[in-house]
């Protein structure tokens, strides 16, 4: 009897396709979501994979970007299904583009749904568009990567190791910074640039927020400074300092790793921030001749590098303070260390933040010089 029952259950198991069964042929994967503000409405753009027969591959783009508008984000997003005859799978969506116009207007228009919706992965990378709509960015084509959403995502991840300018911002972190007092988001911006006869997406600047709005941008230099100050280990990237033997020439240093510690102090009711950065890197290049690699010059270059990092940090701090955007989370630092003081300043923190004095101390050490330990010598 039991054996028969077991067999019956096994047979029944085959019929259990699940409540949300869907044929692969009737589905499409969403790669990225874009939200923008256009004609007093929310415009949603969705990039989806497009199945292409093998014989036609390479002749057409393998994705479609569909845009719709609505009074709310959910209405605009649902309207996509008026023009797409397939069910969408959101598990692969890894990028979220927010239009500059929208974030300058009010994030309150969209954040509730982005937080609440189970389909929107909180691990998605967030980008703010610059000078172009989300639709235009998503419709562009990235070199080497067939899907622009994935291409821009990879661009951000690759630059971190190679160039070291922008800090990726995941949606989860974005939500955290918007909902937590004393810390504001800084999000990489993406724009389109003409290279040869092609227009390709490229990263350019970072969007700083205050409360629910984007209030300005940080340039590359200032964004580098923000990256140094981040309270986490950063790895990779290069930066340039003057040559120790000829200030007109340059030396390129590569960062191995850097870690910063931020400490808040309150003296006579005045908040002061102390930032200590410990970094180490490799000598990467000199664009001149001459014996740069001597123990004395290494010391000089370490000092120059520390000064350069400090300069970038101060540029970043000055810009953030001029915008009143606490992208470094100093408010959180004050709250964590001096909760009583925080209670007094919390309501006018953005104004207080702009006046906070910051002291940046950097110690950079050069470790290695790769294949050669002397400068190149011409015959």
């Amino acid at each position: 009897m039991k054996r028969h029952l077991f067999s019956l259950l096994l047979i029944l198991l085959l019929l259990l396709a699940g409540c949300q069964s869907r044929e692969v042929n009737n589905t499409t994967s969403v790669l990225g979501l874009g939200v923008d503000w256009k004609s007093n409405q929310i415009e949603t753009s969705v990039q989806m994979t497009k199945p292409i027969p093998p014989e036609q591959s390479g002749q057409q783009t393998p994705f479609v970007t569909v845009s719709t508008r609505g009074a709310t984000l959910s209405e605009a997003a649902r309207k996509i299904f008026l023009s797409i005859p397939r069910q969408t799978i959101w598990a692969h969506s890894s990028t979220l583009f927010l239009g500059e116009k929208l974030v300058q207007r009010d994030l309150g228009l969209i954040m509730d749904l982005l937080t609440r919706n189970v389909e929107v992965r909180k691990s998605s990378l967030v980008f703010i568009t610059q000078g172009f709509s989300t639709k235009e960015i998503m419709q562009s084509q990235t070199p080497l990567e067939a899907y622009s959403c994935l291409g821009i995502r990879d661009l951000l991840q690759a630059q971190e190791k190679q160039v070291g300018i922008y800090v990726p911002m995941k949606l989860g972190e974005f939500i955290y910074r918007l909902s937590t007092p004393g810390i504001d988001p800084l999000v990489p911006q993406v724009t389109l640039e003409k290279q040869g006869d092609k227009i390709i997406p490229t990263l350019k600047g970072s969007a700083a927020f205050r409360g629910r709005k984007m209030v300005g941008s940080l340039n590359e230099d200032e964004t580098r400074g923000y990256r140094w100050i981040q309270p986490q280990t950063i790895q990779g990237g290069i930066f340039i300092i003057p040559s120790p033997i000829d200030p007109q020439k340059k030396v390129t240093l590569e960062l191995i790793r850097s870690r910063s510690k931020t400490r808040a102090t309150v003296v006579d009711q005045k908040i002061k921030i102390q930032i200590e950065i410990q970094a180490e890197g490799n000598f990467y290049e000199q664009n001149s001749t001459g014996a740069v690699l001597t123990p004395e010059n290494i010391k000089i270059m370490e000092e120059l590098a520390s000064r350069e990092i400090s300069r970038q940090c101060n540029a970043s701090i000055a810009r953030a303070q001029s915008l009143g955007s606490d992208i470094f989370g100093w408010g959180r630092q004050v709250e964590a260390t001096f909760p009583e003081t925080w209670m007094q300043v919390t309501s006018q923190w953005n104004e207080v933040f702009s006046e906070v004095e910051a002291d940046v101390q950097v110690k950079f050490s050069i470790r290695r010089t790769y294949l050669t330990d002397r400068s190149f010598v011409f015959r």
Partner: protein
Amino acid sequence: MKKINAFQLYCMLLVMIMPVNFLIIPKVLTSYLGNNAWLAIITSLVPGTLIIYIYYSIIKKSLQPFPLLLEEHLGRIPGKTLGFIYVFFFILTSSFTLRIFVEFIESNVLPGTPISIFIGVMLITAFTGIKSGLVSMARMAELITYVGVPFTFLMMALTLTHNPDFGNLKPFAYMSYKAFADALAFATMPLLNMLPVLTLFHYFQRENSFKPMFQVLLSYIVLVGLITISTVVALGGQNSSLFTFPAFVAIRLVSIGDFIQNIDIVFIGIWIMGIFGVLSIWWFMACYTIQQVFNLHDYRFLAAPTALIIGVTSILLSPNILELNLLAKGVLPAVYYFFLLFIPLVVFVITLFKAPVQHQPEYPGSENPVSTAE
């Protein structure tokens, strides 16, 4: 008739506590204490030990299992009346467990699926568990523990891979006394779910029952404490209270090397096993209490009719998740404390004036729960 060993008792009690509270506790405690939520869990060691001592003392001085021990200590009429009321309480706890399961799955996993399907599937599996007897449920609890505990540690570790910010745990202990007291009361409440030990001890060596209970308490503090800490570290104190199930949101953020991600579905599978365990044991308590109150020869046949009551009650509990959360945070604690602490406390006070008893394993009806349909 000593068919449950110490480890099985530990597993059954742990299963009673962990699965539901794994999701609920971080939410409620962060809403009270923000980044200091974990302090309430650690402090629950003190009231938790007292609760265990109360249960243990009752066990030591009782000849009969719950609910018959109510008659033994309070008298026949009050004991029977209370036992009868407890039936409704156990149906309520079963229904609440089922409803939490439904709300979680419906909100996070399979939105749009009719809830009757979730209710039906869970009731059928738990029904099978009850029908197969207490020993089967004990083995099932062992399995759930073997899978669930290591997985909880793994989840906690993986959650910390997502931009952990230990600064989120500061400022340390900056909170109001009232908020802390409320949070402590809530953090202690899950430990009251060990009440079934008053029935289970009858099938276990009572002399050793303190140890498994205390191990459960320590496990609760470690597991729920760590998952609360990792949730706060990953999401922040304020942000955690924003989400309905913050621990689940933290798990969803896990992404290692761009290829280990979307692992929440593994969590869901194991969590469902845990919910099945909790539901089965609360439901068993309901059926067993009915059997003892009405002097019936078996409790298994009661699983079918009570299934309907539990299913319907779970739907009627609240019309939406907001009211369910209000119920969970505002009303249920009072009900739980009344039935799981206040009445046992009264029994405990009465037993203070009694001498410890010798174990009587051959109590009529004791065969039923442990015998299995081999």
